[in-house]
């Protein structure tokens, strides 16, 4: 009987130890899974941070060029201030190629991440050679001009000029509150 009591005692200790160890194993399994998912999230964040650093480094390296392409303006800077700048630039480009602007129509400015886009719709009539010259000049333009919409229609007769409709945008980084709005 005494021996049985000792055996019972030892078995109880072993059983408690085994159950405890099993509990530890379950905890370790859950903790390992949690750690693995946290690790994946942290690695993702690290990757994003490093990518951002690269992007930032490239942006800084191109800083001067970008500053020339997208000028920085002091707030408040609205269409009223931007319009003369843009019209002067565009008139120069179009007139240098020997064409004339028929109509100009500014559209509302759009602001995103401190960058304001000033869209301007214009129409002109010209031939293909001049249009090509104009488009090439727009591509090389400083400050930057983007062609958001571009439409050409041929005339009714073969000797009629091409009817061109474009929406060009110029950009400005506006320190402080962006003005935007209608001109």
């Amino acid at each position: 009987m005494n021996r049985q009591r000792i055996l019972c005692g030892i078995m109880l200790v072993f059983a408690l130890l085994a159950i405890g160890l099993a509990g530890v194993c379950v905890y370790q399994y859950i903790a390992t899974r949690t750690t693995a998912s946290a690790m994946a999230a942290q690695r993702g964040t690290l990757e994003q941070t490093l990518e951002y650093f690269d992007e930032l480094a490239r942006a800084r390296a191109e800083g001067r060029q970008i500053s020339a392409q997208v000028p920085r303006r002091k707030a408040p800077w609205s269409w009223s201030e931007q319009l003369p700048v843009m019209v002067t630039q565009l008139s120069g480009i179009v007139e240098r190629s020997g064409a004339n602007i028929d109509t100009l129509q500014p559209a509302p400015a759009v602001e995103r991440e401190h960058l304001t886009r000033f869209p301007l719709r214009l129409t002109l009539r010209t031939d293909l050679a001049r249009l090509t010259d104009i488009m090439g000049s727009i591509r090389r333009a400083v400050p930057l001009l983007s062609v958001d919409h571009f439409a050409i229609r041929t005339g009714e007769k073969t000797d009629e000029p091409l009817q061109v409709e474009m929406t060009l945008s110029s950009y400005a980084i506006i320190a402080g509150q962006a003005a935007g709005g209608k001109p």
Partner: protein
Amino acid sequence: MFGNRQAFGLDIGDDAWRIVALRRGGGRYEVTYAARLSLPDDPSGALAMAMREAGSGRRVAVGLPASGCAFKTASLPPGNRSALAQVARFEAENQFPLPLRELVWDFALSPEPSGRRHALIAGARRALVDERLALLRGARAVPGLLLPTPLAAIRTVEQPDEPYLLVLAGSEWTDLCRYEGERLRGCRSVLAGDPNAEGWADRLTREIRPWQLAEGGINRIVLLGTAPMDAAKALASGAGLTVMTGNPWQAIRDPQGYLHELEGPPAAYATAVGLAMTALERRPSLNLLPAQLIESRRRERRLTWALAAWALALVLLAPVAWSGHVKLGERQASLREVQSRVKELQGRVDAPEPGMLAAREVATSLRRPESQPLEVLRLLSMEMPEGIALSNLACDRGKSVVLKGRADSNPTLATAVRALNNLVVFERATLDYSNLIKGEDAQAYDFQITCILPADRAAGGKQPRKGLVVR
């Protein structure tokens, strides 16, 4: 029966103790210890010393003298063991001269030729059993089996099918048991004195006579115990029967040469050998150990198995837990490392001037060919097949290019669509319509094709932006 493979048989005789240890392997027995001890002054000490000399194993089978036991037989109908056990108990209560509480009893069943079950019910005085158990406890031995000596001794010899008489000779008491094959029919002890003394055979001859005259009779005598060859011959001539002297050591290996040193005739060791053999059986048919002790041992065995199972579980779990601990530690350390690296990097983040990244994004986007209408025009003029005349072109940056014009045939139009689909600046090109126009001398097709441009976030598209956004 025993967990280990060695078992001791202890025959406490009138003249001496005989101890035999057997081991079974490969279907054969091997003697690992055998000794004859003169009646010891300190029985427990002597047994303990013998067990020490024999080496491993503490479980002992002890013989009970037939003179201290009672044997009854009964023919029982077929049935399950629990029902037969109740009948056997009823028979024991009716047939034993003492109340059952003063006895330790057990029964064994064997088949009869008639299909019924032959029950041998054996009982021993509780005082005798307690005395034997006290002896074993004193020697720190584990009691494995208590068995009347004739039942143990008969195991060592080949049993004839015909009726025979087992004569187990001791120095004072001689046991006479009538067998039919393996079935014991009756047993009694005779105070016949020393078989070496004159007149032993005559006394036995007188005792045997009624057995010979009874129904069925006896055809031969199997002689075991301490009787010498002369006594066997005298018994054979007195009883007029064949007397076979058994040798319990037949078919038992003796690699250590114990048998050469043993005193007395080989048959004197029949009881000890038979006890050891029975003890090596997994389930001896009859055991006069008290039921409480057997139950306690069964419980102990179950506990041992349970303990072993838990220990095994511990052994299996321990390395898993340890390796899990190490791995978890490593992973947590590397997580902390990555977290601190992220924290350090985020602490070093020097926000760029507002709008700088967006401006760079626009500048980069405008460098792509699909953002340049001039490049789109150049590609169209190069790739459009002959027979296509464009009249309208509308290009929305980051969205689509819509072409209108006239084609001389539908195959030409299909070629144009295929060519547009192959241009890298378009994601895909689809024909919106193609209308037949009939002229005076020829026919043509007015068409519209829409080419989808890759999304451009700088132009207001939905392209996901990579990288961390710091505002």
